[in-house]
């Protein structure tokens, strides 16, 4: 478990995505089975172990350390598992195999748990103690998505990410067949019902590029601002997957209950009240919940707007042309008013479509999708058959207020910018942006930050309010968590307005008026 503990620590402090991938790949390559499989499951949240309560751990500690010293320590460290890992007094530092720790947490009965945990802690050095306690409390928090874990696996051998995603949900820790496959063995049979299938993605396009194509070869539909999902009912086994293959069924029991069909469909997850599709912020409230309360189910009902059929009535439709799949879709009976079909848009020229895109009938439409009529359903992001033509972003002119140093390739540069808008005669922070500018602009911004610093707080500087930034963003949610009351989606710096006086920056009221 020493290597696992080291990996956890490195991942926790490494901001760069590529660096994280390399750390993980090196670990997986160097670690034997079954430990690497358990590590992978722990990192992706797929390891189901007995969860040890904070109360149990605290109880172990106060038997060993003066309560007041423990309280002072916890207060300083701020994290219970870490406090205990640091406080535990032992001179031993055995390299205990991860599977032993997993077995202990999986198989020990509740009554025996305190003694077993103390016995394990007695054998471990501080970094392994922390890894073990994080495992025990089920709280890794290292910012590694299951998608990234699969990318690291894809770098290890022949199967690519899409192929791994396809079989992922049929596998269980410690994934021996998966590692065998990566090492050159046979592809694991996906025995599980309702497996995830790679999603077909689109590429961005604009009016100029569309000029090269014949509009009659394409259909178009609205691009709904929800979450792209794959909904499946496979012989009664129901699943809802995100487009990267995360199983999000548990957060949407209302929609799962409505999947009264036999097939696998591609669509948009939305919160819909009657005919009204709610703003993205409403859907966001439903995300990431392990359990959804009755009240939330009533006030924020989930629904599905179907774009495409992958499997239907036991038949795999993916090789058929889109128009054939669409014909089956339009004749399908979903048997629930939570599920409807994404309507097609009538157009004969690209200019027609541009006019529709410019004036969508609902605020939760973020543009149009354009799909070749003859396109089969192909996982991944093939160039050409499907385009997304997004609505122009919103923009506001905001004032640069704070800057924070970046990491990795941006080390030494102030590259994370907090900007604000006027509220009466005060500037209030409304968001953060760290992309949208060129390398040359980054150098200019960095110079500006250094020359106009008012105060420093660690890696953050507050900046004299002198510079206006044009900030582009995709959407806006009301937010109780932000002081300004609004949260922007995908904010980025679209232009640096060296020319514009700060007094002419926008007001918070202008931004609030944009909330749908």
């Amino acid at each position, binding site marked *: 478990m020493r290597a696992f503990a080291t990996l956890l620590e490195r991942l926790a402090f490494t901001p760069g995505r590529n660096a994280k991938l390399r750390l993980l790949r090196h670990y997986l390559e160097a670690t034997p089975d079954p430990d690497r499989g358990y590590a992978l499951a722990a990192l992706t949240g797929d390891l189901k172990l007995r969860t040890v309560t904070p109360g149990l751990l605290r109880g172990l500690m106060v038997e060993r350390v003066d309560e007041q010293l423990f309280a*002072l320590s916890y207060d300083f460290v701020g994290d219970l598992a870490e406090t205990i890992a640091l406080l535990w007094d032992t001179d031993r530092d055995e390299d205990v195999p991860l599977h032993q720790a997993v077995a202990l947490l999986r198989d020990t009965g509740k009554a025996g748990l305190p003694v077993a945990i103390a016995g394990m802690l007695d054998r471990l050095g501080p970094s392994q103690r922390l890894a073990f306690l994080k495992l025990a409390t089920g709280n890794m928090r290292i910012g590694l998505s299951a998608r990234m874990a699969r990318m690291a696996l894809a770098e290890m051998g022949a199967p690519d990410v899409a192929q791994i995603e396809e079989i992922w949900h049929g596998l269980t820790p410690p994934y021996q067949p998966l590692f065998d496959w990566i090492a050159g063995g046979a592809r694991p049979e996906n025995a599980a019902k309702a497996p995830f299938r790679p999603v077909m993605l689109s590429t961005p396009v604009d009016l100029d590029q569309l000029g090269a194509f014949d509009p009659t070869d394409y259909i178009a539909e609205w691009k709904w601002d929800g979450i792209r999902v794959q909904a499946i009912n496979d012989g009664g086994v129901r699943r809802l997957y995100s487009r990267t293959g995360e199983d999000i069924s548990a957060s949407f029991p209302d929609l799962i209950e409505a999947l009264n069909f036999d097939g696998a469909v591609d669509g948009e997850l939305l919160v819909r009240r009657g005919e009204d599709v709610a703003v993205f912020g409403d859907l966001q409230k439903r995300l990431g919940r392990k359990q959804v309360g009755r009240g939330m189910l009533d006030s924020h009902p989930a629904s599905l707007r179907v774009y495409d059929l992958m499997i239907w009535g036991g038949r795999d439709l993916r090789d058929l042309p889109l128009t054939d799949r669409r014909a089956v879709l339009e004749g399908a009976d979903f048997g629930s008013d939570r599920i409807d079909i994404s309507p097609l848009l009538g157009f004969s020229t690209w200019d027609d479509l541009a006019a529709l895109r410019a004036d969508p009938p609902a605020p939760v439409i973020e543009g149009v999708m354009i799909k070749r009529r003859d396109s089969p359903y192909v996982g991944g992001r093939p160039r050409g058959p499907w385009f997304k033509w997004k609505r122009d972003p919103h923009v506001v002119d905001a004032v640069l207020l704070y800057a924070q140093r970046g990491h990795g390739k941006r080390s*030494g540069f102030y590259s994370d910018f907090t900007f604000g808008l006027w509220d009466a005669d005060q500037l209030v922070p409304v968001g953060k942006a760290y992309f949208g500018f060129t390398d040359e602009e980054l150098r200019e911004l*960095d110079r500006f930050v250094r020359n106009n610093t008012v105060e420093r707080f660690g890696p953050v500087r507050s900046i004299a309010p002198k510079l206006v930034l044009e900030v582009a963003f995709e959407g806006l949610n009301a937010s109780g968590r932000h002081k300004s009351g609004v949260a922007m989606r995908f904010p980025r710096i679209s232009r640096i307005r060296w020319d514009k006086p700060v007094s002419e920056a926008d007001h918070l009221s202008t931004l609030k008026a944009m909330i749908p």
Partner: protein
Amino acid sequence: MRADQILHPTPAGLYCPPGDFYIDPVRPVPRALITHGHGDHARSGHGAVMTTRQTLEIMAIRYGADFAGQRQAADGPIRVGDTTVSFHPAGHILGSAQIAVQPDQGPKIVVSGDYCRHPNPVSAAYEPVPCDIFVTEATFGLPVFRHPDPAGEMTRLLASMAEFPERPHLIGAYALGKAQRLIMLARQAGIDGPIAIHGALQRLCDYHVEQGIDLGPLVPATAKQVDAQLVIAPPSAFASAWVQRFRDPVIGFASGWMAVRARARQRGVELPLVISDHVDWPQVTQTITELAPQEVWITHGAEDGLLRWCELQGIPARPLRLVGYEDEPE
């Protein structure tokens, strides 16, 4: 004479009436005794300074030769007013000392300054000095602080350098003491090639070499192109445009605080290295146990933890709550 008539805190620092001197004063005073060369303990502008020869030389490097009206190197017991003072190695940095104050009447007081009992190749080892009153720091005065073997921390540095061979590793370390210790630890860990140092370290590194500490090949990290994977710089350099010459660096920091993740995160560090020049919890408690003083005074740091421990041991202790000393200077 009561102990607090021999030594007591004042706004300028710890003052000794019978000797009419201050120890590590934070403001200019007529007569100062100084434990070590870190900027928060050794300031310029005093009338007279007494400290170890090496600390005098370090102060001259940092502040110029005329940093005080008079300068006296401490060697053996010295009469100051109605007291006898002596300087003893503290194991913290080069030239660091504890100051023992023996009044003609009354208890003997040892002011340990900042001290450390881990083996340190750049400092003479800490020497226990029997006393009636032991004045200790409590920088890491909580039982969560058990500094690991620095060799193990170097193993982590080497592993990262091997894992990311294309990325320069920039390690923040205080210019006096920690930087040179880090270089020596790197040498012990087998890094024989050039180590790049930030310009702010140059003169202090030169001084260590003059004092017989072989730091090995060092190259300046000021050039446009720096030909070393390991670069050592004072933490303040990371906020400057100097960092921009390095492509995709791994930023590290060598400090006892790095043992606590929240602290490492606040600094935006990718590679925290737990290397400290201060006593950790086992060392401070062991030192007090060994010396068995009648009373313990605590200068600065996490005094609540150490006070509680003294209470549990039945050792009288009190906090001096001195202001002006950094937790662990940078």
